[in-house]
């Protein structure tokens, strides 16, 4: 990694020296550039103010808040079952995954656990939302660098996953399917076989993207050694998910904590990458999508039979207490700190979303890079505006 850092520094020093030769008589004037709020690279409406010296960024500051919906305040006037409707909309590409940690936190406070079948189906839907989310990232990645084809492939194959989620839950984007104590419904007939087919298609999609993008010389030259985040910095800023593992940290909340989900029942692999550059982050997500399809396949083989709902009171009152539950969501660590006062609704919910931390590193990582690299670094950090603004 130090090698890569040095390499990045050296290439910038060389470029600066070249600039200096060119600019002997042409003094560059500082310039402020607004990227966004409506730039395709901002996945919504994030505005990034960069101050440039020639082609180089000397200062960068993301300006969020265009989509702040105040969910932490709104949860205080909702009952526990109603909160899932809100938190569904935090990371809108992987909605189901947002519900799970909140429901788990409520279950922890109530000291109940969903029956095994519900836990397995939860895990399957969780991984399906990861695939739906990250496959769009893989397609979008090309667009940021001028390649149009991958995004069509991504939208085509993501549709299969959304259809699966829809047929199981009734909602394409906002399933609102998770309940305290289990799930709303059981899986429909034929769903398991169909899911196996779709997972094959998604693995093909990953292969296609790997051929089209990751082996591409332009893609590599624009991402390798660019935007290097060393391990210590990534941990200090609380980067999570693929961004953290791309910096060589072997940390995955699916494996490294005990939650009532089915991950410890099957065999799967946590990928890491030592480089910490944009390429590593993109590559990590490709591997994780592929791994997620395998996880789903293996989970489908072993779904236990039984009820999908534990015995819970019809009017849910959560005992007094505090609980923290976080899960490894498509974007990284998503957690809820739930404080209950024994009421129908929560007293306070602190929503810890992955993108907020992931994007807070932007001022650090953009310092000194060139303007075109801003876009690739932002793309590789992968954020969703709803997940920053909540």
């Amino acid at each position: 990694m130090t090698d890569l850092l040095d390499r990045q520094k050296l290439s910038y020093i060389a470029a600066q020296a070249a600039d200096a030769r060119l600019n002997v008589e042409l003094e560059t004037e500082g310039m402020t550039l607004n990227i966004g709020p409506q730039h395709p690279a901002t996945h919504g409406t994030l505005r990034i103010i960069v101050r440039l010296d020639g082609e180089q960024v000397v200062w960068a500051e993301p300006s969020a808040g265009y989509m702040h919906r105040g969910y932490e305040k709104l949860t205080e006037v909702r009952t526990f079952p109603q909160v899932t409707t809100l938190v569904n909309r935090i990371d809108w590409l992987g909605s189901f995954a947002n519900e799970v940690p909140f429901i788990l936190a409520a279950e922890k406070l109530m000291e109940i656990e969903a029956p095994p079948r519900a836990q397995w189906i939860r895990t399957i839907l969780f991984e399906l939302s990861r695939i739906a989310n990250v496959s769009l990232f893989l397609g979008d990645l090309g667009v940021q660098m001028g390649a149009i084809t991958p995004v069509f492939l991504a939208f085509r194959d993501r549709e299969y996953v959304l259809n699966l989620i829809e047929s199981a839950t009734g909602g394409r984007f906002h399933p609102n399917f998770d309940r305290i104590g289990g799930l709303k419904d059981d899986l429909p007939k034929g769903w398991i076989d169909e899911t196996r087919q779709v997972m094959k298609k998604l693995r093909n999609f990953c292969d296609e993207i790997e051929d089209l993008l990751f082996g591409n010389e332009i893609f590599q030259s624009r991402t390798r050694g660019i935007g290097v985040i060393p391990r210590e910095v990534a941990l200090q800023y609380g980067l999570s998910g693929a961004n953290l593992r791309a910096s060589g940290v072997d940390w995955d909340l699916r494996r490294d904590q005990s939650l009532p989900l089915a991950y410890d029942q099957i065999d799967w692999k946590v990928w890491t990458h030592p480089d910490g550059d944009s390429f590593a982050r993109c590559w990590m997500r490709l591997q994780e999508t592929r791994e997620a399809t395998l996880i789903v396949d293996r989970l489908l083989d072993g779904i236990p039979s039984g009820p999908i709902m534990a015995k819970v009171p019809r009017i849910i009152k959560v005992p007094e207490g505090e609980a923290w539950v976080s899960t490894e969501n498509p974007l990284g660590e998503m957690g809820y700190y739930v404080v209950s006062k024994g009421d129908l609704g929560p007293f306070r919910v602190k929503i810890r979303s992955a993108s907020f931390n992931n994007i807070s590193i932007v001022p650090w990582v953009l310092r000194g890079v060139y303007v075109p690299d801003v876009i690739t670094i932002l793309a590789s950090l992968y954020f969703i505006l709803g997940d920053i603004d909540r």
Partner: protein
Amino acid sequence: MVRLSETTTETPALPGDGLRERIVGQVRDVIGDGLVDSLVKPGDDVWLRVRTDAWRAAGMALRDAVGCDYFCFLSAIDWMPSPYGRGEDDPTEPPPERDDTIRQGYTGGETRLQVFARVYSIDEHVGVTVKADVPDDDPVVDSWLPVYAGANWHERETHEMFGIRFAGHPDLRNIYLPTDFEGHPLRKDFPLIARMVKPWPGIVDVEPLPGDGEGEGSDD
């Protein structure tokens, strides 16, 4: 069968009574009576409460002595019960009597506002929640920026949402709210305007739940 998903590093007894008790001890060794109270739920979680003036020292102790290298989040809690209840009052009726005693949660507390943060030790697979009281008359605590660089945005968010200032933070600009916004939305005495301008429809539009005849919640 060797599982790929199994960790190569040895996890010191995840059902970690000993592990979490040790963390409490390590923090106490460094900050002494700065540690006011602690709560360990065996195999689940650990809470610490430190004195306001030991807030930064507690962060340093967690980072250096305990080895919590991963910064998760920092925020605050307003323990005052909301004077507006759940925003479901009938505006034509006089407001109901409400219990306005302030009761803090785990590890107690003396003030209305508390800051709390969570950090992880990646090597030992354990997370710690640490809290500190914030003085009511002058809500200032030390900034955690020298401890964890990632605290920057979290402190800015806490500042705008709760009105807590962080001494040593260079730039407490708003992240979400307009610069000239007045008030601190996540304080309990800040009304949720949407529930104020239009009465909650639940108070007039009550549908009986199916099976309501046989008494509510037969099993609760």
